[in-house]
C-alpha cells in the first residue's frame, strides 16, 4: 500500500464525511417547526453522544466490571482487588504518595504562581520575569523529569559530580544527598518537578486576572488606607477567587494523573509509586488485570469530586 494511495483514501474519507454532514445539516435546516427543533437537536447531539458512549462510557463500565475479576480476567473475585489496595503494604504506600502529591502540588504551585504574579505585577522586568517562569510549561513532563533526574544525580562526596544539586551541596561543604532514594523526601523532590512545570501555568492565569481587577476598586481601597498585605488579602485574592479555584482544580486533576514524572525519574522504585503509575504497572507489566482495573477505578473515584466541584463552580458563575 503506497503513500499516495493512503492519502487518496484519506481525502475520499474527508469528502464523504463533509458530504454526509452537509446533507444532515441541509435536512435539519429544512424542518422549521417546533418539532423540527427537536429533530435538529437530536441530529446534532446524537453523534457526540454515540462517540462518548463508545469511547468513554463503555470502556469505563468495562473497567469497573473487570476490577471485580482476577489477574487474568477469568474469574470473579468480588471486592478482593479493592481489599488489596487498602491492605497490601505496597498499595498503601501508593495511596499515601498519591495523597501527598494531590495535597502538596496544587497548593504550592498555585501559591508560588500567585505570589510571583503579584510581585512582578507592573514591575519593569515583568515580561522577562514571566517568560522565565513560564518556559518550563513548554517542556514535556518526560523532558522535565529527565532534566531533573540529572539535577538530582547522586555520586558519593569524594567523586566528581554530575548532578547540579549535589554539586551545589559540595560547594557549600556539605555531603551529597540521595534525592531520589531517601524516603519519604524523594516524593517531595519529584513534586518539585511538577511544581516547576505548573507554577508557570498558575502564574499566567492569575496574573491575567489580577490585571483584570478594575482600577476603581483598587483606588477605592487605597483611599480607605489599605495597602500591602491587606490589599493582597482583602482585594486581590477575593477578586480573583474564581481563577484561583480553576487553577487549583486544574492542577489537582493533572496531579492525580501524574505518571510521566514517576516513571521517568524513579520507575516507581524507592516507594515513590502513585495510583496512575501503579495501575499501568499492574495492567501492562505484571499482567494483573483485575488489580490494575481496580486502581483505575480508584483514580476515577478520586478525580470525580474535583471535577464535580469544578463544574458546580462554573455553574455558579454562570448563574450570577
Amino acid at each position, binding site marked *: 500500500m503506497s503513500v499516495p494511495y493512503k492519502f487518496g483514501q484519506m481525502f475520499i474519507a474527508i469528502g464523504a464525511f463533509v458530504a454526509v454532514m452537509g446533507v444532515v445539516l441541509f435536512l435539519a435546516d429544512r424542518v422549521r417547526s417546533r418539532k423540527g427543533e427537536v429533530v435538529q437537536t437530536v441530529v446534532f447531539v446524537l453523534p457526540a453522544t454515540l462517540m462518548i458512549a463508545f469511547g468513554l462510557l463503555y470502556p469505563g463500565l468495562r473497567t469497573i466490571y473487570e476490577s471485580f475479576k482476577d489477574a487474568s480476567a477469568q474469574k470473579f473475585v468480588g471486592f478482593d482487588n479493592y481489599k488489596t489496595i487498602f491492605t497490601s503494604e505496597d498499595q498503601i504506600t501508593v495511596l499515601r504518595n498519591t495523597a501527598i502529591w494531590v495535597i502538596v502540588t496544587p497548593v504550592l504551585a498555585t501559591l508560588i504562581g500567585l505570589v510571583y504574579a503579584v510581585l512582578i505585577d507592573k514591575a519593569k522586568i515583568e515580561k522577562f520575569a514571566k517568560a522565565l517562569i513560564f518556559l518550563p510549561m513548554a517542556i514535556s513532563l518526560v523532558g522535565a523529569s529527565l532534566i531533573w533526574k540529572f539535577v538530582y544525580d547522586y555520586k558519593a562526596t569524594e567523586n566528581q559530580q554530575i548532578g547540579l544539586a549535589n554539586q551545589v551541596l559540595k560547594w557549600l561543604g556539605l555531603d551529597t544527598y540521595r534525592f531520589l532514594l531517601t524516603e519519604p523526601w524523594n516524593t517531595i523532590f519529584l513534586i518539585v518537578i511538577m511544581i516547576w512545570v505548573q507554577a508557570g501555568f498558575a502564574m499566567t492565569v492569575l496574573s491575567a486576572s489580577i490585571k483584570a481587577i478594575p482600577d476603581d476598586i483598587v483606588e477605592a481601597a487605597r483611599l480607605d488606607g489599605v495597602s500591602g498585605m491587606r490589599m493582597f488579602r482583602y482585594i486581590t485574592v477575593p477578586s480573583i477567587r474564581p481563577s484561583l479555584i480553576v487553577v487549583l482544580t486544574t492542577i489537582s486533576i493533572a496531579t492525580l494523573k501524574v505518571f510521566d514524572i514517576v516513571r521517568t525519574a*524513579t*520507575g516507581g522504585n*524507592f516507594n515513590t509509586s502513585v495510583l496512575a503509575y501503579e495501575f499501568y504497572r499492574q495492567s501492562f507489566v505484571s*499482567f494483573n488485570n483485575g488489580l490494575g482495573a481496580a486502581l483505575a477505578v480508584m483514580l476515577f473515584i478520586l478525580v470525580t469530586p474535583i471535577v464535580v466541584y469544578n463544574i458546580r463552580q462554573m455553574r455558579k458563575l454562570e448563574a*450570577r
Partner: protein
Amino acid sequence: MRDAENRIWSREGAVRMRSTKARRGAAAFAIVVSASIVLAACGGSSGGGGGGGSAGGKAPGLAKAECAPIKSVMTEYGDLSGKHVKVYTSVVAPEDVPQKNSYKLFESCTGATVDYEGSKEFEAQLVVRVKSGNPPDIAYIPQPGLLKTLVQTTGKVIEAPKSVVDNVDKWFGEDWKKYGTVDGKFYAPPLDANVKSFVWYSPKMFADNGWTIPTTWDEMLTLSDTIAATGIKPWCAGIGSGEATGWPATDWLEDVMLRDNGPDVYDQWVAHEIPFNDPKVAAALDRVGGILKNPKYVNGGFGDVKSIATTTFQDGGLPILDGKCAMHRQASFYAANFPAGTKIAEDGGDVFAFYLPVTNADQGKPVLGAGNFIAAFRDAPEVQAFQTYLSTDTWANEKGKATPNGGFVSANKGLDVTNVASAIDQESVKILQDPNAVFRFDGSDLMPGAVGAGSEWKELTAWITGESTKDALSKIEDSWPAS
C-alpha cells in the same frame, strides 16, 4: 464591591462568548480530522492481509547464486514479490542497522519486503497491540514468560510451520526449542542469544598490579580483599534501568543459584516447585550480598552500596576505564556500552571479561544467558518464509557478518565463529555451542510477568537499598500468581 464584581463577571462573559465561537470552529475541525483518521486507519489494514493465493509460483530471485543456501527451505513459499512482513522489536537505532542489513538476502531472494519497526516501549506495547487486534506479523520476544502469557491469554500467536520446526531441530539444542514451546506446542524459534556469566575487568590494570583471574568464588573474594586493601573499591555495579530497574540484580541471583545448587534445583526454582523464599535461595542471595552489599567492595566510582540502585546499568561498569573499579559482572552485550575506541581484548586491552567463577565444584561450569524468540501473529506464506529464514544457519552467519562492531551471539550450531566480530562474542558462541556446557535461561524471563518483571525487580532494588534478604524473598514469594 458588589458592583465591581458584577463588572468583572460581565467582562469575563464577553470573553467567554468570543471564545465559544472559536471553540465551535475548533470542534468542527477536530471532528473532521478525527473522523478521517479513523476511516484511514480502517482502510489501512486491508491491503497486507490475505495474500495466500499466489504461493506455488517460483520466486524471482531464488535462482541467484547467493540464494543457494536458502533455496531448499524457501522454494515451498513460492513468489513473494510485493508482499510485506511487518516486524516489531525492541531493537532501536543504532543497533537496528545490522538487523535490517541481515534481511537483505531474504528480500532479494524472495521479493518480499520487511517493514522494520523498533520501539523502546516494545514489551508493554506488544501486549496492548495484540490484545487490541493490531498485532505485528513478527515480533522478537525477549522473554519466554511473555510468550507464554501471550499464547495463554490472547491465543493470537501462530504455531511455527514445519519448515521452522525442521530448522530448529537441525540447528538448535533441545533446551532452546523448549523455551519457544508453550503447553506442548512449538511457537517461537530463537533469534539471537547472549551469555550473562561474565565479569568485566581491565587486563592492563590486572597485569600492572599482578592480579590473576580467579577461577573459584573464594579466589574471587580473596582478590577482592587484595584490591580493597589498595584503596580501590574492587566492584562496581548499577541496576538502574528506568521501569526495569533491578534486573541486573536478578541476574546475579540467578548466576549464584545455578552455581550453588546446579541446574536441577534452578529449574525447580524457576518453575516455582520450590518457594522463592526457600533457604537455598536465601543462601544464594546472601552470597550475592557478600559482594553487592559489602561496603568494602562497592561501589567503585559511584559511592556506597545504595548508589547501585540509582546508577544506570549502562554506566555501571564504566569506572573500570578510570581505574576506580576492578570488576563488573554483566552480560556479553555490555561491550556496546564502552565508548568508541576502547580496546576490548585479553592481551593488553582496556577491558575484557572472564567467566564468573564457580562456587560449588560439584556443579560443573554452568552458564546463564538469554535471547530473543521469533513469534508470528499472521498466518501467511511470507510471514512463515521470514520466520523460516531467521531460523536458518544462513541468517545467523549473515547477521554475524552484518554486525562488524560486535554484539551478536547465537546458539545456532551452524554459526561459524569466524563470522562473529568481537572476541567476547566469539567466546560466547563457543560456550553456547559446547555440548557439555550446562546452559540455563535467565530465570526472571521465564517466570510469570508479575514476578519476573514485577516484584523480583522491585524487591531486589529495595534489598540493595536496605531491605533484609528474608523480607525481600518473602514479598516476592507472596506475589507469585496463584493458579
